[in-house]
């Protein structure tokens, strides 16, 4: 391994090690939460709702839950990790190393990505054991999951870098992300909503992400897959470019 490869692997290893050390909180709790959602919405409500667009209700909900667990875990890992290290001053050890802004950004990004991937992967395995979950369009599903994970990892990095206190991170997660995810159609189809809520849902970017993942699993979408993929790719690239610029400038990282 070259010195640069060792450096990057170590930066990444540190981020993965952080969440693996507190597994109960970082992996156990999100898994339990997802399991509870499946129980409540699948076993309880599912017996009443039966089907949506010809798909069993619990199967309709699970892709959205997988997307939700991937995104929230990727986001919260990175925002917490960066803010915590800023608080402790421990981030100075990485910042005073020869690591480039790109290496630092990617290492922080992949930490959250890995945590999101593990929780989403375990959710998928558990869900597959409980219900008959199809994977209809794997060539849409894999890039969509990758983009969703990368997008929220980047958003977590941006929030962590900008944050000055834990309240700043909690605000984004509680008052921005959670409402957007819940109102983005994880648990229902937007077509069931009365106006103007149906139209408003179309302005929620997470609605398109949920539809991409749902299409990948069950082959049903309320929006154009090609356009959604294109928009998500553009948004992820834009966020990455903003973060890279902030890291290069040392924004709120270097005095």
């Amino acid at each position: 391994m070259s010195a640069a490869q060792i450096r990057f692997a170590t930066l990444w290893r540190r981020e993965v090690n952080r969440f693996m050390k507190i597994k109960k909180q970082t992996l156990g709790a999100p898994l339990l939460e997802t399991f509870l959602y499946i129980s409540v919405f699948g076993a309880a409500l599912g017996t009443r709702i039966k089907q949506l667009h010809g798909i069993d209700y619990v199967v309709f909900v699970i892709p959205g839950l997988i997307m939700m667990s991937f995104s929230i875990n990727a986001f919260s890992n990175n925002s917490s990790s960066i803010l915590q290290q800023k608080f402790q001053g421990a981030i100075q050890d990485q910042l005073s190393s020869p690591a480039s802004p790109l290496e630092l950004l990617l290492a922080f990004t992949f930490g959250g990505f890995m945590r999101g991937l593990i929780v989403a992967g375990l959710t998928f395995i558990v869900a597959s054991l409980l219900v008959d979950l199809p994977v209809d369009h794997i060539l849409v599903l894999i890039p969509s999951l990758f983009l969703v994970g990368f997008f929220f990892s980047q958003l977590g990095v941006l929030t962590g870098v900008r944050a000055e206190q834990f309240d700043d991170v909690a605000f984004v997660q509680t008052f921005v992300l959670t409402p957007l995810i819940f109102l983005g159609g994880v648990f229902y189809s937007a077509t069931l909503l009365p106006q103007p809520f149906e139209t408003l849902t179309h302005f929620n970017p997470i609605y398109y992400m949920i539809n991409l993942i749902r299409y990948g699993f069950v082959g049903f979408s309320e929006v154009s897959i090609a356009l959604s993929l294109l928009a998500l790719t553009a948004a992820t690239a834009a966020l990455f470019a903003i973060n890279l610029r902030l890291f290069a400038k040392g924004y709120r990282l270097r005095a």
Partner: protein
Amino acid sequence: MSEAALHIEDLVKRYPTGVEALRGVSLEIAPGELFGLLGPNGAGKSTLIHCTTGLAQPTSGAIEVFGHDAIKDYGKARQAVGLAPQELNIDWFLTVEETLDYHAGYFGMPKRERRERTKELLDTFSLTEKSDERTRTLSGGMKRRLILARAMMHRPRLLILDEPTAGVDVELRLELWHYMQRINQEGTTILLTTHYLEEAEQLCDRIAFINDGQIVGEGTSEELSGRYGVANLEDAYLALVGRNELSRSKIEAVS
């Protein structure tokens, strides 16, 4: 290209708040020197160190570490520097051993070498018994030892020690003095900031006084005392900061 271990020219650092922490500092430290930087709190010592190690971004001026520009060629410049900061900036999640291992990884050191170096420094700084303990459980003195060991992990050619003996007990202070002298004799250049003038007098080849963001005196301890016509370095320091009335010679001995 400069031959100096550290070459600083006309360095200015103005913070976004408008505070000018460094106002045209120029400094040169020769390879193999043990150089002391003294000054009151808020004089600019830590800002100068942060600009050298990439933790702060200079407003203008030049910094070279062994001929490598600290801004344009930051990778090589930082590779040559080991920093033991004033604040105990260690990651609470990591164990003592991990702290050292990750640091060396950030500097591209291969695994086997990291393992050997970690063992060696744990032994040198009497931390072997604590190697598997989380850093937050360590006492203040132990944390100080760990920060020094971490700074040495990647075998820096220039070691920057920012008030390493502040708040440590007599035993550790003397241990550190011995250690500094030993590695300096082995070829490591050291930049030491301290508030203890007898420490600077005892250890340093040359000393610079910094006050209000400017270097106001530079030379050996004898040169500085001679220049101000006083008996010792402490009185020279008091003369430079305009507080001659505090001289110990004016304190009556207890009979």
